[in-house]
């Protein structure tokens, strides 16, 4: 399956819709608005890529996720900040020990899942912010192996967590209780379905029909796997700046794929050649 770039959102600059120094994370709200975090800001774009809102964060943000009720969770160093849809700060979970570097946030039912790249694991909380358990901390490496300093995961509708264990060149599946269910992927520099370099994939998200979308660094690529983890297609070459790494990825309701170019500070939108599925 071929994917082509159809749009570019934001970019490096001083305009209101642009980022000056960093663009780290993206996510969607239930209404299909794109949230992008970088510098010290959250920016919200509509389906056309037009900036609708922006507000400041307390710390430089690493990731963003929006819960079904519209609450916006922003991952930072030492804390997770929460905002309402208007950008009003409604609270924060602060825990320097458990939130060293929050690089990914996900939700399942009443649970909030928070990846701490500093301690190399995923934390499970209830909706009030009470810690329940860690995921990946009891595996045979006492945490994910992430030399790239970024831990990303996505949770499916059944509550299975799909997490990148990048130095093992695997995407691993865990239950909410932290039991390892299995994994796919291994190192390889030649065949595109394999994961190259020291540590890939760096980022991932689940898409419609059980698909998995990942990004890699050195050289930067976006790849799409089907439900059985057969490679469906990939984008590489000049699509991203060669120095990109830890490129966050998100998928909208039409299965369009959004990838952060972490050097040009833009969000690239890709659609399959057959068109996106409603």
């Amino acid at each position, binding site marked *: 399956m071929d994917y082509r770039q159809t749009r570019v959102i934001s970019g490096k600059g001083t305009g209101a819709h642009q980022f000056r120094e960093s663009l780290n994370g993206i996510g969607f709200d239930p209404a299909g608005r794109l949230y992008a975090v970088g510098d010290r800001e959250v920016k919200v774009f509509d389906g056309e890529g037009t900036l609708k809102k922006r507000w400041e964060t307390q710390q430089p943000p690493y990731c963003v996720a929006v819960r079904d009720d519209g609450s916006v969770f922003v991952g930072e160093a030492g804390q997770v900040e929460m905002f309402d849809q208007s950008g009003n700060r409604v609270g924060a979970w602060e825990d320097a020990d458990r939130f060293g570097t929050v690089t990914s946030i996900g939700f399942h039912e009443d649970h909030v899942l928070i990846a701490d790249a500093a301690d190399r694991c995923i934390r499970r909380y209830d909706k009030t912010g009470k810690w329940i358990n860690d995921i990946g901390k009891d595996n045979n490496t006492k945490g994910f192996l992430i030399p790239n300093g970024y831990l990303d995961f996505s949770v499916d509708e059944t509550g299975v967590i799909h997490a990148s264990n990048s130095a*093992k060149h695997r995407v691993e599946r865990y239950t909410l209780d932290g039991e390892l269910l299995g994994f796919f992927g291994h*190192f390889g520099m030649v065949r595109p379905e394999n994961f190259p370099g020291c*540590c890939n994939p760096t980022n991932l998200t689940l898409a419609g029909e059980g698909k998995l979308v990942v990004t890699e660094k050195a050289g930067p690529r976006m790849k799409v796997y089907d439900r059985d983890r057969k490679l469906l297609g990939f984008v590489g070459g000049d699509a991203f700046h060669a120095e990109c790494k830890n490129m966050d990825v998100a998928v909208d309701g039409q299965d369009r794929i959004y990838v952060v170019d972490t050097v040009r500070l833009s969000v690239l939108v890709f659609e399959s050649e057959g068109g996106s599925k409603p």
Partner: protein
Amino acid sequence: MKKQPTRRDVLGHVVRGTGLLVLGGAAVHLVRRANAEGAWWIDPTKCVNIRLGATGVEVCDLCATDCVLPLSAIRAVNEFSECGRCCICPAYYDVRSEVGPDGLPSRKLCPRDAITREAIGEVDPEDPLNNFYEYTIDEDKCNGCGACVMGCKEPAGLGSIRLEVRYDVCLDCNRCTIAQVCPDDAIVQKAIDLPGA
């Protein structure tokens, strides 16, 4: 961006070199030599093997080939505190070589076999991917060819390996022969603050 050598870095190198040479009574001479007009130094923001942004380009091996010494005064140095300790290290392995039955690349990158590694922490002998590794460069073998430095550079690695002039062996030539051929003008004389200077 790579940091310039601090007084502490330079002192560390000199002290190490001094330890080797002290029986020969060369320590005083060494300090004097490095202080003369400043010492030759590799600017990490210029050297193609080290500087960020130079990816997908040929490795420059002139530091290995153009020093007046038979074994160049330039060495690769791994800053342990910045190393990711990856299993499939792109500076240790030739990651483009065929993958062996153990799932690892079949060839090493260093042409002089100067890099060794040791599993650290809780070692899992069954699965090399479960381990962290400490990578050490044997300075008696390394000639500063730069291959590992380029391999470790961001974004492929973390850039913990860089090239440095070893002041305990550098002759501090008036005109460094590498500086004369360096395509990036990366070898420059720099005032270096040494104890007693």
